[in-house]
C-alpha cells in the first residue's frame, strides 16, 4: 500500500486545489455550452415539436442509474463551430451491454455535420471497433454543413465504411432514426444492421422533392420518398416502425437485449475503494508545471485499496512503474515522477511494457513529462537509442493502453508516454494538462536564440524590443495552443476530466476494453542495442 505524504491542510495543497477548482469551473462552463446545444431558442422550438433533446434520448436509452462516459464533449472548442460539434457521443450501458452511442443534436444547425462532427463520429466508430462495443446511432441530422463540404465530403465516406466494417467484425450497429437522415445521411440507416424509424418523424431519402423535381421532373412528397411508414411497409429499409420517440428508444433497448451480448475480455475481481480520498487529487498538480509532483500520490487515490507494487523503484527514478488494480482490473502503470526521461527511465519503461505484454495486462500512462533529456552527455550516452527503444515498445505493445495527461506532455515524451499518435484505446486530460513540442517559454527562447544568431551572421543589430514582443507573442500563442480545452477541441484527446473522476473513467475504459478479447501477443521490433 502506498503511504501518502500529502498534507491536505498545507497552504501549498490548498493553493493548488483552488487553482484546479477554478479550472474545473471553466470546464463546467464549457460543458454547459455543449449541453446547451443550439441555445434556448432552438431547444424550446425542438421541445415544442414534441421531440426529445439528444441527451434526453441518450438518458432514456441507457439503463437507469448506470454511468455514461461522454466522449469528446469539447469537440470544436476554439473553432467556428459550437462546442460539442452538434453531436453527443459516449459509452453507455443498454440492457446490461456497454455500447458506443452517438446522437445528433438537431438544435445545433439542424444537427448538420461539420468537420469536427466528422472527427467525433469517426472517433466513436473507432472506439466501437477496437473495443468491440455495439454501436447505436440516434439519427436526426440535416446532413453536411455545405459551406465546409470540402472538409467533409471525401473523408466523410469513412462513416459508412466504418459502419459496415463494424458489422463485418461482428459488432452490431443500430440506427434509431428520429428525424431527417437524408442524402449521404441516408446511408447511416442504410449501412446499419438494425433500423428503427419513428412514425411521421423519420425522413430518409437520397434526394428530397425539390431535387427529385430537378433531376427527373417527378412530383413527390417527403412521406412517399422517405417516410417511416413507407420504409417499414414498402422499401423495407426500416426494420421496426416506432409509434413515437419513446417507442423507438424502447425498441432500441429491446434490440440490444436480443443480441445476447457477451463480453470476451478479462473478468475483474471485486473492486476495493482506495484508502485515500479522490478529493485530494485536486491539490496535487502544481500551478506551475515546472514543479514536479509525485505520481504515487495520484495512484494512491486511483488504485484499488491504494495498493501499488512498484517495479524497479530504485532504478530510473524519474519514471515510476508498477502493478495495481483499478475497479478490479489488473493494470501496469507508467507515471512520470521528475518530468525528464533519461536513458535509465527509457530502458525501465521498455522492460516494463514487455512484461505487461507477457502477462497480457493493460497499461495506464500517467503523463507529466518534459521530454527526453538533452545535452552532450546524454546524446553521447545514447538517449536517442533508448528513447527509440521505449517508443518502439509503446508502438508495438498489443495490450490496451489508457493515457491520462495530468500535467506536461512535451516533446518526444508525449510519444514515449503513449500520446494520441500512439493509439491508446482512450486518452483523457486533466484541466491542468499541456501538450506541445516544448514549453512556451523554451520555444520562444529557442526562436530568439536562432533569430539572434541569424542577425549576427548577417551583421545586423538585433532588435531587442522586437525580440521581447516576439517572445511574448509566441509564448502566448503556444501557451494557448497547448491547453487542454484547445487540444480536446481538436479531438487530440477523448475529453477533459475532473481529476476526481480519474478512477471512474479508467474503470469504465477498462471495462470497455475488456468487451473485446484479450489481444494476442505480438513480436516486437528490433531494439537497438
Amino acid at each position, binding site marked *: 500500500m502506498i503511504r501518502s505524504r500529502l498534507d491536505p491542510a498545507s497552504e501549498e495543497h490548498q493553493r493548488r486545489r483552488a487553482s484546479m477548482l477554478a479550472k474545473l469551473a471553466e470546464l463546467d462552463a464549457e460543458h454547459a455550452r455543449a449541453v446547451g446545444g443550439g441555445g434556448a431558442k432552438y431547444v424550446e422550438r425542438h421541445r415544442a415539436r414534441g421531440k426529445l433533446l439528444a*441527451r434526453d434520448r441518450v438518458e*432514456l436509452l441507457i439503463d437507469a442509474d448506470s454511468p455514461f462516459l461522454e466522449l469528446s464533449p469539447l469537440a470544436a472548442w476554439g473553432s467556428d463551430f459550437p462546442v460539442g460539434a452538434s453531436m453527443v457521443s459516449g459509452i453507455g450501458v443498454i440492457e446490461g451491454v*456497454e455500447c458506443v452511442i452517438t446522437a445528433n443534436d438537431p438544435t445545433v444547425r439542424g444537427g448538420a455535420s461539420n468537420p469536427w462532427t466528422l472527427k467525433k463520429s469517426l472517433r466513436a466508430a473507432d472506439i466501437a471497433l477496437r473495443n468491440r462495443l455495439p454501436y447505436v446511432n440516434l439519427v436526426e441530422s440535416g446532413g453536411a454543413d455545405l459551406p465546409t463540404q470540402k472538409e467533409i465530403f471525401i473523408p466523410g465516406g469513412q462513416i459508412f465504411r466504418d459502419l459496415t466494417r463494424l458489422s463485418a467484425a461482428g459488432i452490431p450497429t443500430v440506427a434509431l432514426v428520429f428525424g431527417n437522415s437524408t442524402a449521404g445521411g441516408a446511408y447511416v440507416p442504410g449501412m446499419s444492421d438494425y433500423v428503427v424509424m419513428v412514425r411521421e418523424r423519420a425522413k430518409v431519402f437520397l434526394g428530397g422533392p425539390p431535387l427529385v423535381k430537378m433531376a427527373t421532373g417527378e412530383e413527390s412528397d417527403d412521406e412517399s420518398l422517405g417516410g417511416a411508414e413507407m420504409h417499414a411497409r414498402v422499401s423495407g429499409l426500416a426494420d421496426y416502425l416506432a409509434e413515437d420517440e419513446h417507442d423507438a428508444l424502447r425498441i432500441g433497448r429491446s434490440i440490444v437485449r436480443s443480441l445476447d451480448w457477451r463480453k470476451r475480455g478479462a473478468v475483474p475481481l471485486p473492486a476495493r475503494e482506495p484508502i485515500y480520498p479522490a478529493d485530494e487529487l485536486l491539490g496535487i498538480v502544481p500551478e506551475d508545471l515546472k514543479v514536479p509532483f509525485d505520481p504515487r500520490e495520484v495512484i494512491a487515490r486511483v488504485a484499488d485499496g491504494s495498493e501499488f507494487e512498484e517495479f524497479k523503484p530504485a532504478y530510473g527514478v524519474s519514471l515510476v512503474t508498477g502493478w495495481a488494480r483499478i475497479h478490479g482490473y489488473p493494470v501496469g502503470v507508467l507515471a512520470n515522477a521528475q518530468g525528464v526521461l533519461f536513458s535509465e527511465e527509457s530502458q525501465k519503461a521498455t522492460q516494463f511494457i514487455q512484461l505487461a505484454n507477457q502477462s497480457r495486462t493493460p497499461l495506464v500512462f500517467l503523463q507529466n513529462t518534459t521530454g527526453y533529456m538533452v545535452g552532450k552527455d546524454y546524446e553521447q550516452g545514447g538517449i536517442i537509442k533508448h528513447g527509440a527503444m521505449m517508443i518502439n515498445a509503446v508502438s508495438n505493445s498489443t495490450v490496451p493502453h489508457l493515457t491520462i495527461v495530468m500535467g506536461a506532455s512535451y516533446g518526444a515524451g508525449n510519444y514515449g508516454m503513449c500520446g494520441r499518435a500512439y493509439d491508446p484505446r482512450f486518452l483523457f486530460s486533466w484541466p491542468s494538462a499541456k501538450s506541445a513540442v516544448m514549453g512556451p517559454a523554451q520555444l520562444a527562447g529557442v526562436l530568439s536564440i536562432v533569430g539572434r544568431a541569424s542577425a549576427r551572421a548577417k551583421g545586423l543589430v538585433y532588435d531587442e524590443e522586437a525580440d521581447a514582443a516576439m517572445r511574448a507573442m509566441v509564448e502566448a500563442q503556444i501557451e494557448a495552443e497547448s491547453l487542454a480545452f484547445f487540444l480536446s477541441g481538436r479531438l487530440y484527446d477523448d475529453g477533459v476530466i475532473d481529476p476526481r473522476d480519474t478512477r471512474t473513467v479508467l474503470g469504465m475504459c477498462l471495462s470497455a476494453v475488456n468487451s473485446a478479447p484479450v489481444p494476442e501477443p505480438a513480436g516486437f521490433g528490433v531494439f537497438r542495442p
Partner: protein
Amino acid sequence: MIDRLLVANRGEIARRVFRTCRSLGISTVAVYSDPDASAPHVSEADLAVRLPGAHPSETYLDAGLILAACRAAGADAVHPGYGFLSENADFAQAVLDAGLVWVGPPPAAIAAMGSKVAAKRLMAEAGVPVLPSLDPAAPGEFPLLVKASAGGGGRGMRVVREPGELAREIESAEREAAAAFGDGTVFVEPLLEAARHVEVQVLADRHGTVWALGERECSVQRRHQKVVEECPSPGISAALREHLFEAAARAARAIGHTGAGTVEFLVKGDRVAFLEMNTRLQVEHPVTELVHGVDLVRLQLEIAEGAALPASPPEPAGHAVEARLYAEDDGYLPQTGVLRRFEVPGDVRVDAGVESGSVVSPHYDAMLAKVVAHGSSRGEAVRRLATALRRAKLHGVTTNRDLLVRILTNPVFLAGDTHTGFLDPDGPVHGVPTRPRPAPDGATSDGPGGEPAGGLPALAAALALAAANRRDARVLAGLPSGWRNVRSQPRRARFAEAEIVYDPLPEHITVLSAEPDTVVLERDGVRHTFEVARYDGDPKVYVDHAGGCAVLTPLPRLPEPVEHVAPGSLLAPMPGSVLRVEVAAGDRVAKGQPVLVLEAMKMEHRVAAPVAGVVSGVHVEKGRQVEAGAVLAIIQEEST
C-alpha cells in the same frame, strides 16, 4: 375432559382458540375450505379436515360436513368461534346429539336470542330496559329504525326519517332479511341517534354463577360494523355501569345462558336500551381479557367441561383498546390479493388470521387481524396502539390502517367522546384534522427549502430503486450511481403518486446511506430511516417509516405508445382486394368467425373475428383495393 377440539371456524378466531388449547394440552382440529387450504389456522392445527368448495354455505356453514369432520378426526368437542354456526341452535343440538362437547350455551338459550322480536319481549319481561317496538302503521316518532328479527351485521336494517318512506323501507328490509337469513320478519324501533354502543361481557357456569365481566365500548363503527373497541367505556358513570351489569346478568339468567356471552346496549345519557345478546365469544373479547387478566376461551372450555366459576370475577386493571385491521379501501370496499408482508411491532397483542404471504380471498370477512394494546391508562393504551399500527408493515393489500391511526389520534376520540355516528362522513374523523404530531415524521410534503414532491418517503423509494439498479447491474456495477462526466439533467424518479428529483438533492437533505432495502436521510440535522420493500409480481414500492407506510408505483421510463387504431380493428394483413364481406354492421360474431375474405397474390386470405362481439363497422366493400394495415372492420368485444 376435552381431548381433541374441533374449531368450526377459520382465520384469527380459530388460531385464537387453538392457542388456548395448546396451553391446556388439548389436541386441535381445523376445518378449511379450498381457498383456505394454506391458511395459518390450518397449518397450526394438529389435524385438519377439508371442506370442499369456497362459499360459506358449502363449507363453514354446512353443519353436516362439520360433524362428519369431527367423526373423521376423532374430535370430542366443538368450538364454534363467532359468526358461521356459532349462534345456530340446531347445530348446537346436533353436536350434543352426536355425543360431543359443545363449547357454548344450551341450544335453548341460543334459540331464545335468535329472534330479536322474541328476545326483546323476553328481556322486557326480565326487567331489562328495551326500546319500545312501534306499530308500523302508526309509529308516532321519527326517525326510526327498521331491523330484521333474525338479523346482524346491518343487513335488513333501515334508518327511516320520513313517514312517507316507511312502507317502502319495510318492504325492502323484509326482502333483504329473507334473502340473507331465510326469515323476512322485521320490526320497528325508535332510532337512538348519537348514542354509545356499550356491551357487557357475561360468563355463566352450570352451577348458577353469572359474572358481568366488565363492559366494552364499541361506538366506533362503520356500516354497523365495529372498528375500534375498548374496555372500560370512557363515557359511562359508575352508577350506569352497575345498572348495565345488573341488566346483563338478568338477561343471561333469563335465558339460562352458560359460557361466554355479550349483552349489547345503546346508551345515550341516562337512557339505556337493550340491543341484543350474543350467545358466543365476541370478536372484541381480547380487551376484556387484557383488563381482567383472564383467558375467556379457557373459561369457556372449563365451563363446558362442567367446572364452576369463582363467586366473583377478577378486578379490572388499566385500559385496553382494540383496532380491527380490515383489508379495505377508504370507501370500505373489501380488498383482495397477496398480503406480501404482515408485521406489527411493539408491545401489543395481535390476533391475526393471516401472516406474511397470505392470500386475502374475496370469499370471507375482510378482517385481517385485531391489534390490541393494554396500558395503565386509556391514553397510554391508545398511544401504544396508534404507534404499533403506524409502524406495522402491511404490504400488498390496501388496509384501513391509516383510518385506524386517524381515529386513534383524533381529538374527539382521545376525549372519549364517541358515539355510533363517529365515522359518518360529516363526523369528526372526516371533518377535524388529526392531532398534529410533535416531531416531523418524514412524510410532510412541502417542508422548507424545496422539499421533494412526495416527501422523503418518495425520495427514499427513488434512492432505493437506484441502489437496486446498481446492485443488479451486469456491468460497471462498482461505478458511482448515475455517474456522468457531463451532466445534462437532474436524475428523476417518476411514480404514479409523485415525480421527484433525487440527484442533486436540496442542501438541507443529505443521504447518509442508500441500500436497496434501507435508506437513511438527514433533513435539517434530523435522521430519518426508511425501510423499502418490493416483491416479485408486485410493481409497487413500500416505504415504511416512523410516520406510516408510503406506497409508490414506479412508472415505466419508456411508456407504451398510444394505440393508433381503434380497439377491435381488423387490419388488412397485406395489400389486396376484398373478395367477399361476410358480415354486416350490427351482426353478432363468434370468435374465429370469418368476417371477410381478401384476395392477394391469387390466394384467398380469410380475416376472422379475433374476439366474440358485435360488428360495429365495416369499412370496405366487395371489390375494394386495400393497403396493408388498412382498417377493414371493427368488432366491439362482448363484455363478459
